[in-house]
């Protein structure tokens, strides 16, 4: 059983989250400000995830995250009504691993919690899977095994149609590179584009809905509006971060 610390000054929100997480089978610890959170983190060594509100009395979420990060590697998901890009960047730069804006969709929250727990508890699994063969393509926790035609995102298997699979494989193979609709068509169908209109765009949207937690804010399959699509090269990012 995993322990999750939920920190928010709004007791009702904490209670609601507790209900969702308990249903998912997590054990929930509760704190109503940064100081309490720090105290609980100090007392309990086996916390697997922290959900942290930003605007709190006594000690705000950013400072709390900073203090926790000093000696803990536990994943932190920021939970805030502040929805500006600037706020998200500040949160992620101050020790948060993910950022969810209020009001959130409970399903998304659970999906993100699951993802972070999986990542935290089963590190190194990518490397294991990569050794299976050459026909494995990946970016971050997105893994495509061309031998078995299996697609896995953050440890979860995804079911795709053949066309979707081909498009995703092509983009993952060439991760980090932006391809226009025309280019994707020509490469996947291997024939001249005759003005494929929006077929590719529709497929891409479907893929995104399947592999992303929040398709509107995709993590893997990014839309560069007016230019094309790409699979974000997350390994490159991690390397440079190290």
């Amino acid at each position, binding site marked *: 059983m995993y322990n999750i610390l939920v920190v928010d000054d709004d007791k009702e929100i904490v209670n*609601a989250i507790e209900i969702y997480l308990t249903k998912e089978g997590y054990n929930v610890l509760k704190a109503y400000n940064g100081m309490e959170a720090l105290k609980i983190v100090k007392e309990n060594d086996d916390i697997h995830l922290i959900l942290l509100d930003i605007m709190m009395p006594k000690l705000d979420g950013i400072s709390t995250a900073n203090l926790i990060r000093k000696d803990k590697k536990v994943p932190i998901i920021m939970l805030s009504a502040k929805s500006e890009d600037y706020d998200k960047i500040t949160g992620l730069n101050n020790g948060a691993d993910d950022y969810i804006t209020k009001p959130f969709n409970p399903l998304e929250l659970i999906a993100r919690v699951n993802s972070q727990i999986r990542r935290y508890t089963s590190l190194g699994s990518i490397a294991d899977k990569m050794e299976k063969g050459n026909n494995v393509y990946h970016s971050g926790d997105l893994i495509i095994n061309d031998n078995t035609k299996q697609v896995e995102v953050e440890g979860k298997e995804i079911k795709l149609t053949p066309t979707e699979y081909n498009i995703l494989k092509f983009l993952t193979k060439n991760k980090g590179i932006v391809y226009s609709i025309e280019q994707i068509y020509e490469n996947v169908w291997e024939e001249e584009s005759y003005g494929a209109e929006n077929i590719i*765009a529709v497929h891409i949207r479907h893929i995104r809905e399947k592999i992303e937690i929040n398709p509107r804010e995709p993590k893997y399959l990014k839309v560069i509006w*007016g230019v094309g699509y790409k699979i974000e090269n997350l390994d490159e990012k991690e390397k440079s971060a190290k």
Partner: protein
Amino acid sequence: MKESKISLARVSKNICYFIAPIFGLILIACIAGLIIMDTEIELENTSNYYDTKIFSNNYLSSIYANTYIPTFLKEEGNEEQNNSQSDMIDMRSYGYDIQENVQINGGTGIIWYKTDNNSNFKYLMIDYENRIAVTNLEHTMRTDTIDEIKGIIAENPTYWNFKNGNIDTNISYLSMEEIRYTSQYEEISSSNIKEIYTSLVEDLPYRDDYAMSKFAYDLSMRANTLAPILIPLCIATLLALGLIILNGIGKKGKGPGIHLNGFDKIPLEIAFFIGSCIIGFSMIFFVALKSELRAVIFSGVTIGTIISYLGAILLLETVVKRMKTHTLWKTTLLYMIGHGIKTLIDNRKIATKLTLAYWGFCAVGFIATFGIVGSYSAGGSLFWFVALVSLGIATFCFLFRKIKQFNTIQNAIKAIYEGNTNIKLNENELTGVLKQLGIYIEDIAGGLSNAVNESLKSERLKTELITNVSHDIKTPLTSIINYVDLLKKEKMPNEKATEYLMILDNKSQRLKKLTEDLVEASKASSGNIKLKMEKIEVKELVKQVSGEFEDKFKARNLEEVMTLPEEPIYIKADGRYIYRVLENLYSNASKYALENTRVYVDVISNKNSVVIQMKNISKEELNISADELMQRFVRGDSARNTEGSGLGLSIASSLTELQGGKFHIYLDGDLFKVTLGFYLLEDRSVEN
């Protein structure tokens, strides 16, 4: 203490008014003496007037002038002797007194007494031949005989006698040696007069040429010796007095200010006229100079001098006071009239002024031209020609200056038009109406600048407020959404409860969307967004967005008809925000288009611009104007039953304009058409 000091200035000034004339007179006397000496008197070694050449010349002239009289009288006498008694009386009436039966040259003769003579020069001329003697002594008991007369004449120290062709004198320049060859002597010696006795009364009691001449001479001599000391002394004293007077003028009682009286406020010209009248009036007293009585002369001259001196002081004081208060020029009638005319002209409209100036120019030009042609002399023509050319040059200079100023103002207005409200005009460069105009423009610019700043500030504050409010709304909204969601998982007691819960769920989701859109709309309309402009391919963009909405269109059985040009179309925009614009338009179409209809999306490429056009048939009747539709919170359906915040079009419009595009909505019945216009990327050919 201070008070006494100030009144000291005033008192000392008044004392100076008394002292100044004394030194002034001394100075004038000294200077006059020097002038007389330089012009009238040859400098001689002697300090005695009677030894001077000028005196001797005068004396000789006096003798010569009087030698005629006996001759004339002798003839008269002859006539008188031969003619009637009445002639004798007539002679007396000419001013001569007669003593008859006088012993002259051993016979009886006549002595004529010239009575109207006030001269210091006394003479006796004897004509032996006709036995007539003439003298200017008074006819008294003591002057009955020749010898008595001689005796009186001989009483005076300065004398010149002529007897038997010999001269007996104590005037060195009139000795025989000195005057023998002069024409006067020849005249004297060749006349009938055989004996001449002359002398000058001691101390010159009569005011005649001799007295004046001696006075002038003595004065000059004294001036000559004293002048080197007196003139500088007087000038220095007068300067000092003048300074004290100038300092003292206008001071009165307490305070350092200048006190003006009524006289100082009347126009300067009138003040001068009054002053002149006073001085002119004083001149009347100088008529006394003609009087015989010294007392009359003295008092007349004194009164006259004092009055004119007071008049002069009055004028000096008022002029100095006006200068001290810098009102000398302003209190002149000339200034007042000029100022009045200027005000009169200034208050006219510029058109009137221009007309006046034009007619003035024409009139002067016409007169000058007429002058050139009509002048009788070449000089006159030249004068008028020069005048005409000067007029032309002056007008050109004036216009040039005005045009320069006009340009300054024009540039300022242009700057304001271009949005630079922070302008500063050099008001000293501008004159007249243009100066006023410049000041107005500066004020307008300042006002605009303030208004712009205020409006920016208020927009920013509004955005901040909306952002903050939305944060505060989001927190309770989170609880609502979560508990509604939790409730959905619970078992509901009946159908109605489930229905109500669905409504709660629906509305809480809409509230969420509304808060998000509200922040975005406020940011977009206030321009509070950082744009990252990139090269965007329009066809790709439209296809991408179309792909995103494929499902939603299908759900309502809407068919999308896309018309795209062959060649790629590049524009400059921020990909995320241009997507937001198209997303809003597609979202609108998916929500408000009539089911089972077609939605037309056209990309029309022009020479240097591109238009993205979207047309659909509205589900609801569009009974509002396009402008209204773009306003915030206005939606096509007045009932507001459908989802959406009513901010979509407003956000789309704001974002389009932020990215340099044009956003238009056209309504034609139920046809809803929206166009986005963007300029093509200029370096398109290079990029390809």
